[in-house]
């Protein structure tokens, strides 16, 4: 876009899609904002203006703080797992020579399984305390099987979600590893750098950018994890696995309180934006140049 002419043309041509996108976002957002200011319960045909009452109600709900915390724990843990093991597995896969394609395909597969389905698989086939594979494994070693969703509900959710997102990280990181310059590695070899030095001084800096992308994209999706919780724990026991998305759902469709749910939705939007700005600050630096 060198000249003023082309800039102007570009703006005109882009305008329709920008406007459409704006409407697409603004209309639901405006409706949510409007509902959030109403006393609006599906069980009660009378609606009335509530002002900030719904916000006060949602924020003072003791479940709110714990759901916020749960969201952070879930996002943080899954990010940590997919970054750490993502790098590790990508490094290993980069070494594998025989059966490369098959191994890769198998690794990517979980990404294509619907969240609901994968949660069901984990719940019924793997983590079931009586008939699950893990229970069998535990018994094999003479241990008492773990009742995953009762004893360690958050850990279970984290495992399921991480299982889904790890392949994505591996895929991106593996692609990045393959573009690593071989002569650089050899130069480092001549310079007397061992495997760890080469990893920390060459490979890891090279992976900074793809890692940023992984973290950015995963955060966006992990903030709204829902199906996995809905299918397995239903937010319980108590509110131990209730994240923000699930809290809003339970407000709206379990308690039929559309007003409070809308208020919660807007609060979630604000929080997500704060997280996004925060992330862009830290991570976005790596994406420049």
């Amino acid at each position, binding site marked *: 876009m060198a000249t003023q002419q082309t800039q102007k043309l570009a703006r005109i041509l882009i305008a329709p899609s920008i406007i459409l996108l704006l409407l697409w976002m603004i209309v639901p957002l405006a409706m949510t904002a409007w509902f959030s200011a109403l006393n609006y319960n599906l069980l009660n045909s009378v609606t009335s203006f509530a002002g900030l009452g719904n916000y006060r109600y949602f924020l003072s709900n003791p479940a709110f703080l714990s759901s916020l915390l749960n969201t952070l724990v879930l996002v943080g843990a899954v990010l940590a797992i997919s970054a750490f093991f993502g790098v590790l597995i990508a490094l290993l896969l980069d070494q594998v020579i025989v059966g490369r394609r098959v191994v890769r395909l198998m690794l990517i597969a979980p990404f294509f399984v619907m969240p609901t389905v994968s949660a069901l698989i984990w719940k019924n086939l793997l983590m079931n305390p009586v008939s699950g594979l893990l229970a069998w494994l535990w018994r094999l070693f003479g241990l008492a099987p773990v009742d995953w969703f009762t004893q360690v509900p958050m850990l279970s959710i984290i495992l399921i979600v991480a299982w889904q997102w790890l392949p994505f990280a591996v895929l991106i990181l593996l692609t990045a590893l393959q573009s690593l310059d071989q002569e*650089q590695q*050899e130069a480092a*070899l*001549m*310079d007397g750098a061992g495997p760890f030095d080469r990893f920390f*001084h*060459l490979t890891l800096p090279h992976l900074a950018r793809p890692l940023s992308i992984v973290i950015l994209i995963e955060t966006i999706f992990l903030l709204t994890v829902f199906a996995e919780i809905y299918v397995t724990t239903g937010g319980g026991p108590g509110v131990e696995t209730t994240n923000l998305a699930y809290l809003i759902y339970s407000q709206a469709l379990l308690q039929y309180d559309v007003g409070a749910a809308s208020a919660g939705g807007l609060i979630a939007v604000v929080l997500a934006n704060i997280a996004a700005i925060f992330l862009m600050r830290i991570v976005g630096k790596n994406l420049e140049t």
Partner: protein
Amino acid sequence: MGRITLEGVTKSFDDTKVIHGADLEIEDGKFVVFVGPSGCGKTTLLRLIAGLEDVSGGRILIDGKDVTRLAPAKRGLSMVFQSYALYPHMSVRRNIAFGLKMARMPKDEIERRVAHAAGILNLTDYLDRRPGQLSGGQRQRVAIGRAIVREPKGFLFDEPLSNLDAALRVQMRLEVTRLQKQLKTTAVYVTHDQVEAMTMADQIVVLQAGRIEQVGTPLELYQRPANVFVAGFIGSPRMNLFEGPVAKRNGATTLGVRPEHLRVQPGEAVAPAGCEAWGGTVIQAEHLGSDTFVYVDVPGIGTLDARCTGELRVQVGDTVTLLPDMYQLHRFDAQQLAMA
């Protein structure tokens, strides 16, 4: 010290043999150039010396010590890659210092050496930049800086100038040669550019298809090529090489004569006693100003290239006689080897 010895070094990739038994003695402080056509194994041989590839057979010695199974870093050599292979995330300073840091050298010593190298290479103002912010020539100098700070026993260069433009290449050629003479460190330099080879080398190693064809000083190779391949490869424009009755008459299977050893005489002429005279038709004349290259079609021999002064006026279609300098004829036998 840095005497590098190859003893019967061979290398195969899978089933293809790429280096067929190389024997070579590189003396301390010498600038040795590997030259040869593309794919002849120059890079492979250099990488074998560096330790980046394992030999399939034979031994490599540095200062008399067998290093055949030694890791690259332990051989005390440093390498300048064709792509420079700088570390993109590090500043120029850290790039140059990396090898020293890996050797756990004290900080102030590292700093001293980096500053010294940067001074020699005119990089002092660029020490805090990233490689991405440098020009090609500057990157090249960083790569050289990285090689010299370690004060190695020898430098290995793999076509280090091939990514530079012509003018910069000439300048860097001089700088590299000057630096090597100043440091008195053994250097092995790979190129396929024979001008680089002729101007930089103390010793040239001519390779063809994984075999060492000849080793010698630039002038030795030029004046006494050991075989037809070297005769044709060294020298620009190429030596005229031909077979046939004229070659036989002079007691050789293949006869060679360089363009500057052919005198061009307009018209027909008779050979003086004991000399040759080849009459023919000019098919092309390249006037370069100082020199003129005349391509002459001689019946029974083929096309010969002759160099003469720019004053000579010849045109396409003219009949001329070529008078070779009989003392400068190169005779090769049926095995393509030079005859004494």
